[in-house]
């Protein structure tokens, strides 16, 4: 047996049977209305490309992108009904823009540029294609893949393909590997051709035995590929933890995995890159797994981005009445869905449906008994009970010293806590406070800099004037006879000095305005 990689912390989960989830259900009918949510703060930089009552084709870009955000494509052909502000379901403070598209059920595509031999193209042009077709990391972070690839050129030596699904109820990646492995293979080769890596590691968890043997057969005579088996534990899917368990190194704080020579891609991103480069398709599908407690099965669906969840559940004949609770995300990282009109977005992984039970047992919150279960379980060596104390008592300094910003909100510490404390709730709140403090400190710094600049400017102006005055007095006293000769010249120079002073004032004011813009 091969070596199994492991990481400290984490919990073992009970397995569920995986008979029904090998297959992807390809066909979900198109709803009449698609809702697409664009983040507002990115939209300020990238303008909208469409107007209300404009016809769009399937795959047409709706926005211009910029360096940090990629264009977003229309999932269907039809009419744009409305563009409006809207707040996301979870975070009410974050303003989004919502684009409503009425589909005409004709499925007219734009012309797709197919590439048969990608090796004829330079890496830069391939990256441009990937950027224009709107591919982001589908693991949940939504980091632009094109940017990652640009950064990685001539810097990385290993490509890590992340096929780990720590959550026991998500099987989307598993079914993707099962059905489309050849395409993923091509995707890996494309990425390795772009960023010239020496090794490709496919990371997979130990319980998928069938799949592992299948991949091992396929990669037997290929030197580049290697398979790594990770222990079945929650959480294994985060890139930080994968790198730590594979290599023993940690990503330095504030840096990216690329900086230590590793490029990490989620398996569905690799698949999307292949579709984009070879078939020319923009990213408008994604695979979502749905776990239904009632029928006790988890299924995977290929769904268009923008399909309202309401419609999707109706199609599956799942009644969303008060007896059920619908969550986004898996068993651990779930968020309660409050708005059923919310649509499927690029960073969504799975939908969880739970039966709502009237609680017979009351969950009593005891106080923390310092048992240390949470410390042993935390995958990144934090001290949750200390953080809980600090954040409860508003002790921001010590909370920052105990590295609260590193917490990945995996919620295991909350699950194992015998006192049923909602630890992550406190951490989220504390993180918000920390961010506020950070912004405040930054603002103070900038204003202080501005103040100093202003002082300097005024001082230099005074000095200039003082110097000039002295200079003239000096001249007039000593070289009085030459003064008459130079009178015309002096007048000119006097004017020049004044000009210089004015220029300097202007320059400093421009500097000030620029700095102010930076703050805002």
């Amino acid at each position: 047996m091969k070596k199994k990689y492991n990481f400290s912390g984490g919990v073992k989960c009970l397995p569920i049977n995986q008979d029904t989830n090998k297959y992807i259900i390809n066909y979900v009918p198109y709803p009449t209305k698609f809702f697409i949510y664009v983040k507002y703060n990115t939209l300020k930089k990238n303008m909208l490309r469409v107007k209300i009552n404009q016809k769009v084709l399937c795959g047409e870009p709706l926005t211009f992108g910029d360096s940090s955000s990629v264009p977003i494509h229309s999932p269907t052909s039809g009419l744009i009904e409305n563009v409006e502000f809207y707040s996301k379901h979870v975070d009410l403070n974050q303003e989004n823009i919502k684009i409503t598209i009425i589909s005409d059920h004709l499925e007219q595509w734009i012309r797709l540029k197919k590439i048969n031999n990608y090796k004829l193209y330079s890496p830069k042009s391939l990256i441009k294609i990937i950027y224009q077709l709107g591919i982001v990391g589908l693991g949940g972070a939504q980091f632009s893949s094109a940017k990652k690839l640009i950064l990685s050129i001539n810097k990385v030596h290993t490509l890590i393909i992340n096929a780990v699904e720590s959550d026991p109820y998500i099987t989307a990646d598993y079914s993707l590997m099962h059905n489309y492995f050849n395409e993923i293979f091509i995707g890996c080769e494309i990425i390795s051709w772009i960023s010239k890596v020496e090794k490709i590691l496919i990371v997979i968890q130990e319980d998928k035995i069938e799949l592992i043997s299948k991949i091992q057969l396929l990669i037997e005579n290929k030197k580049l590929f290697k398979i790594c088996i990770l222990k079945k534990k929650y959480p294994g899917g985060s890139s930080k933890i994968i790198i730590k368990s594979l290599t023993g190194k940690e990503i330095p704080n504030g840096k990216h995995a690329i900086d230590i020579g590793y490029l990490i891609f989620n398996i569905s991103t690799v698949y999307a890159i292949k579709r984009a480069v070879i078939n020319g398709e923009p990213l408008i599908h994604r695979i979502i797994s749905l776990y239904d407690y009632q029928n006790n099965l988890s299924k995977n669906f290929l769904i268009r981005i923008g399909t309202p969840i309401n419609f999707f559940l109706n199609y599956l004949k799942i009644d969303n009445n008060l007896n059920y609770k619908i969550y986004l995300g898996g068993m651990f990282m779930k968020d309660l869905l409050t708005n059923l009109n919310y649509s499927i977005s690029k960073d969504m992984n799975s939908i969880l449906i739970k039966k709502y039970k009237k609680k017979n047992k009351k969950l009593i919150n005891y106080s923390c008994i310092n048992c240390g279960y949470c410390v042993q379980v935390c995958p990144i060596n934090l001290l949750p009970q200390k953080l809980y104390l600090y954040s409860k008592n508003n002790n921001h300094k010590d909370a920052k010293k105990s590295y609260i910003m590193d917490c990945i909100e995996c919620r295991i510490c909350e699950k194992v806590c015998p006192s049923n404390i909602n630890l992550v709730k406190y951490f989220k709140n504390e993180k918000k406070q920390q961010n506020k403090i950070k912004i405040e400190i930054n603002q103070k710094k900038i204003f202080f800099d501005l103040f100093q600049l202003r002082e300097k400017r005024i001082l230099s102006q005074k000095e200039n004037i003082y110097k000039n005055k002295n200079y003239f007095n000096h001249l007039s006293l000593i070289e009085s006879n030459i003064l008459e000769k130079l009178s015309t010249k002096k007048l000119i120079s006097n004017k020049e000095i004044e000009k210089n002073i004015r220029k300097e004032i202007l320059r400093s004011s421009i500097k000030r305005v620029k700095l102010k813009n930076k703050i805002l």
Partner: protein
Amino acid sequence: MNLSIYNNYTVKEIMFFVIIASIPAIFTECYFFGFIILIQILLFIIFSLIFEIIILKIRQKNIKNNILDNSSIVTSVLLGLSIPCTLTWWMIIIGAFFSIVVSKHLYGGLGQNIFNPAMIGYAVLLISFPLYMSSWNKENTNLFSLNDLKTSINKIFFKTSKSDFLISSDPEDFTEATPLNDLKNKSYYNYDISLKNLTSQNKKITVFSAYNYINISFLLGGFFLLYKKIICWRIPFSFLFSFFFLSVINFLFSINPIVSPFFHLFSGGTMICAFFIATDPVTTSYSNIGKIIFGSIVGLLVYIIRNYSDYPDGVAFSVLFGNMLVPLIDNFLKTSGYGHRDI
């Protein structure tokens, strides 16, 4: 609660398992020392619950939730197991008061206390009533004292004559809570060579064997707790290892060896300390290395107190001293988070 994770307990369940694990020890103590032990434990539970209700009323907390966490019952069971069987009811009240009110609720309730509540109660009783805490019942020569329910009730509530309880101050008499004190006396005076009293010899054997059996039953309970993963193996094993190691050194290198290290392991309160008292989660360090340090410090202190001080069994004081060091240990063992090491 959550079906997808193994070994997920609530506070209530943890405390309940501790009570279950101490049942064999209760039975062996009953077998050797009579029903008086059961009555003492019951009295402790009743008084500590009463004190808890009163103080919760004063602090205006939810009485039902706070009592249901079983922690005060655990404290009183452990306290009842560690005291000798000569205490009367008003001493029990004092012990319960100090363990519940002073050491727990004055520090801020469950989870905030620095010192182990049971050991605070024990230490207070030991300091204030040293004679009672170190004297032994005279009628305990026969092993089968299960029938003396009436006499034991009489002893606790209606103590009539002092001579019934306290043994005359002959130095050769065996009058201590644990056989350890006898060893101490021997090492100082060498009495056992000059005076040989048959009855005291007989009693010595019974009590020696009783303490062996009690320690073994605590060991069984401790293994049950380890199997259920309620306590971590680090504290008991580091404690036992350091204690055993030091006594082996003492045994091998001292001029006139007195007791074997195995005798030290199975006498007095060694096992109850290792598995039940030192592993109290509230007052111990949370990190793995900190637990090992804490355990070995307690082991060292127990060794020192037993061998070089005037107290026969140093469990209570060494645990309390270890508790004092815990915040210091925790402060110096902060973990590094993620990705901060290299900078």
